[in-house]
């Protein structure tokens, strides 16, 4: 579906890239991002991997303007994310790690929130889109439930539906498949990958699920303690000789450890 009526400028039907230049951020004197340079190209699926606490979520929050950089800048389609009119100009979306659904609204109202608040569609049309998107993430018939009645994994799927409603040109996912059972994780990963076929969208996916990452990524970046240690196609990253990268990619559970 197109938003031609409400978004008349021609640039709204294409995917937009993001460029991160020299990004630094500390919290209370503790450096979290120590000079990040990245370029996500329009239309690609870019996966950011790394251990917990390495700064993935903080990086993602910068990419949609929720945090102010200490140094460096974030450019969306060549324009600073801080510029006030940017959010009116492009349709961006983020799927939060926790879902971040509005607890006072029903699932249906959450999913339709963007369209309702910006008055982009008549109510029946919104209801139809909401039903369609919920079905897409496998949550048909949950419209009238409240977020508190859902499991963590279901909340995340609602959050994905809520982001898809925006028809985003750039979508950021923070660990979209964590907390999901392997089956739902595969469905969501597939949806992320197939979105690219249906609409012009750039996807940035934070994940530490190696299977998902290598399955859907056009390119992968590995972040470690606030520094990018590798960027490239899945093949390039797999062959990267850096010991941190290799350790992160190849460590497996070893249940025999205790016996030795």
């Amino acid at each position: 579906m197109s938003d031609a009526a409400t978004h008349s400028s021609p640039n709204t039907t294409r995917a937009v890239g993001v460029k991160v230049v020299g990004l630094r951020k500390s919290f209370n004197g503790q450096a979290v991002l120590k000079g990040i340079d990245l370029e996500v190209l329009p239309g690609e699926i870019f996966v950011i991997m790394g251990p917990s606490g390495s700064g993935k979520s903080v990086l993602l929050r910068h990419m949609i303007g929720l945090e102010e950089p200490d140094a460096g800048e974030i450019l969306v389609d060549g324009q600073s994310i801080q510029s006030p009119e940017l959010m009116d100009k492009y349709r961006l979306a983020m799927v939060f790690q926790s879902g971040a659904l509005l607890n006072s609204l029903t699932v249906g109202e959450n999913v339709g929130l963007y369209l309702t608040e910006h008055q982009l569609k008549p109510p029946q049309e919104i209801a139809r889109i909401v039903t369609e998107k919920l079905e897409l993430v496998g949550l048909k018939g949950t419209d009238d439930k409240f977020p508190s009645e859902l499991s963590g994994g279901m909340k995340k799927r609602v959050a994905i539906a809520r982001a898809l409603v925006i028809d985003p040109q750039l979508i950021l996912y923070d660990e979209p498949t964590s907390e999901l059972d392997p089956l739902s994780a595969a469905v969501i990963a597939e949806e992320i990958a197939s979105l690219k076929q249906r609409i012009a969208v750039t996807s940035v996916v934070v994940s530490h699920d190696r299977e998902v990452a290598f399955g859907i990524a056009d390119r992968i970046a590995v972040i470690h303690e606030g520094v990018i240690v590798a960027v490239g196609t899945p093949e390039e990253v797999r062959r990267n000789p850096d010991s941190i990268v290799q350790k992160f990619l190849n460590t497996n559970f070893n249940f025999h450890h205790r016996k030795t």
Partner: protein
Amino acid sequence: MFQNLGEMLLLFTRTLGSLPLLWRHRQKVFDQFFEIGNASLFMVCVLSFFIGGVIALLTGPVLVDHGVKDSIGGLVGIAICKELAPVMMSILIAGRIGSSMAAEIGSMRVYQEIDALRTMNINPIHYLVLPRLVSIAVGLPLLVIFSILVGWGGGALVADLNNKIGVDFRSFFANLRDTVRISDVANGLFKSFVFALVVGVVSCHQGLQTIGGPRGIGRSVTKAVVNCIVMIVILDYFLTRLLL
């Protein structure tokens, strides 16, 4: 508390600036408005009735001793409409509504719901603060009108029934009507309107400032209520001075 005054003024002016969007958010205004009425109407009645009663009870015997017992209607009337109803109801609303505003917005802050709004290009001031501020600014003066009427009734009843006072209903209200001017009531309503803005802005600001998980929400609620009450009492003095 006072270093935040600048931020609060900024929040207030931004909310005022978003007033043209009010019609678009009318549903949320109505929801908040009924929430306020629902949560407080009964409490307002009980509190106002007893406040009116106790003022009559305290002043009645003194007035009787001085042989001016007929002026009790005017005295209770003025005390209630110019001071007690606006201040007590504002404090009640700070405790009842201010706290829930701070808690609600604070939990939305902590659980990233406000971040989610921002990523959807929905301005939290338009979505959250505007409807709350408007509904409290309209709702509190209405509650105060209610409170004044019930408070007068409570005073009249005590003056009538208490055998140390013994001023009947008719002469109570006759004196009240002679003494209390419409401007006195307007005076009280104006005060309550200002207090409503204080409660709305302080509580929403505190909610938006919340950091640090569930404990942070608790801290925000306490701070919001305490700051509201302190500001109401201090402002009350200056407003009274101004309107004298």
